[in-house]
């Protein structure tokens, strides 16, 4: 994913996950850039799946 602030390209697993300290219900859907710490929204699983399907189709 590309950080919306500094443009750093990083893998989702390299990003910094929320800690749940805010006490809000549900899991945090934000992921912070390892370079500048800006919070980026995590792509929903459904959209990711759709995108992967289309990307695969295009690649082939």
């Amino acid at each position, binding site marked *: 994913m590309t950080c919306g602030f500094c*443009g750093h390209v990083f893998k989702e697993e390299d990003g910094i996950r929320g800690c749940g300290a*805010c006490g809000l219900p*549900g899991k945090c859907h934000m992921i912070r850039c390892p370079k500048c710490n800006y919070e980026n*929204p995590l792509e*929903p699983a459904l*959209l990711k799946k759709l995108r*992967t399907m289309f990307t695969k189709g295009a690649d082939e």
Partner: protein
Amino acid sequence: MGVAAAVNRGVGADRVRRVALVGNPNVGKSVLFNALTGAYVTVSNYPGTSVEVSHGSVTIAGVACEIIDTPGMYALLPITEEERVARELLLKDPPDLVIHVLDARNLERMLSMTIQLIEAGLPTLLVVNIMDEAERMGITVATELLQQRLGIPVIAAATARKRGLAEIRRAIVAYERPNCPLFNYSPRLDQDIAAVAGLLRGEYHISAKAVALLLLQGDDEVAALVAASEADNWEKIARTVKNKRFERRESFNVDLSMERKNVVSALLDGVLVLPEKRRVTLGERLSTLAVRPLTGVPLLLVILYFGLYKFVGDFGAGTLVDFFENQLIEAYFNPFAIQLVKAVIPWEIFQELFVGEYGIITLGLRYAVGIILPIVATFFLFFSVLEDSGYFPRLALLVDRLFKKIGLTGRAVIPMVLGFGCDTMATMVTRTLETVRERILATLLLALAIPCSAQLGVILALLSKVPGALLVWSLCLLLIFLVVGFLAARLLPGETPMFYMELPPMRLPQLSNILTKTYTRMQWYFLEILPLFVFASVLLWLGKITGFFEKAVNGLSPLMAALGLPPEVAVAFIFGFFRRDYGAAGLYDLQTKGGLDPRQLTVAAVTLTLFIPCIAQFLVMKKERGWKVATLIGVFVSLLAFGSGWLLNQTLLLTGWL
């Protein structure tokens, strides 16, 4: 001797082909890695370091490949731990193919590493990436001519746009080790290299020339490796290296850089054609305008006017809310829900819980869906457009000078900008600021003067209907933000750190990115607020049936009177303690029923914006800054909010402005 055995071993059809991606940071290696590997990826720390290396498996045209994404490196001579790891990956167990990815816009600067890879005898493929941007700048690269001169395959690509991916895949499978030309330096340098290389007797994974060059550059790791490999011969090699370096008065590295620059210039003669007059793209022009105070501030005001005022305030909080709340929920949904609940639940007290004055459906759901959702949808759409255009880092540079006056730097723009989305999340992000002083200042200012998206939208919608009210509200907020920041920065000891950042290019926002980000943020926001709004409705219902809520409203009445507000506004303040946006929605409700005149509306909006942070933000403040600081900020913010409200009311009464 010289070239690694691993390099010479060839690749059997049944063996996994190991392909390493190398290059400077931010040239698109990871994009290429993801495009090549897809989902089959493992990430692990390189042994003995904290540097992560990604491995991915893929089969290309029947050939099984392992793709390795190495950390960014600038040269074979490492400086940072990342570069050291990247080099070790190449030298200790050389891959079957090294793909050097470089940025076409900086070809002259980055090609030096390609020379080093070829010199080292590594099987190299060059990907000239980001060609789309280079072409937009009027740069042309004759890749075929470059391929002839380098003696390795060269592919022009724009991996982010999938350009060149098919060629890269084909090249990975078809790669055969070519005979690369030797790059000649000046006779003196060639003699120095030959003098050291000629002494090497051991077996190395890279060429003797590359080993000699690294020794002459004073590479301690390679020196230790050679010392172990050469045994008795090492002393002679070390002496020769020392003499050669001494003869050049220790300027070997500078001399080599200059010579490599000459080699690169000769290679690029006729290959790289730059436009006569550098073509300045629209993005670059906008970028310059955005960071210069003289043009940046008016540009910011234009963005705020059209983005926040017209789009979020006028369209989102006006037109859309009117449609959802009045035309859908109030006209159709609520009467149906009330009828249904009354038919199903016989007890009035429980009917109240769902469809009463503070009912889960008639208040909680109506606020969440009818008022807050349209506003946050328009706000996040506007936010995503700005984010995807690359405007935010420019904003950070623009406000850096102003922020330094309040003890912060441009870096604090990140939590401040995020605060307009949700102050709770933004408070958490303050931990990334460099000093404790900055963190406390940013936490205080977030709690005080940064309204969250929904609160901002509702207030914009309410105040835009009263001439002058929005201006008074904006000036009050800005003044309080600056004065409190300025005074707090003087009270808290410490220095303001330096701020610097690399600016990513400004670009045309992509529709798919904007929609994905807006949808994700909306989904997250809605899922987060809905249970809280339901919970708040239950608490208010409990407060109502126990009489506690009435007592709280009565208790706040003198305070409301002091602010020149009717007692009913206390409800919005109580709501606001649950959530900022809930409070703003309460005020909206009150105003649509015609409960406030222009002065009262402005005073209530200013006080409510400054008022105590919501429960979630308070919890994060406690977690990040501790009980003491969080309580102090909470008390200070509340006192300041009511103090400012009182002062504003008196000023407006005296001047008769509104």
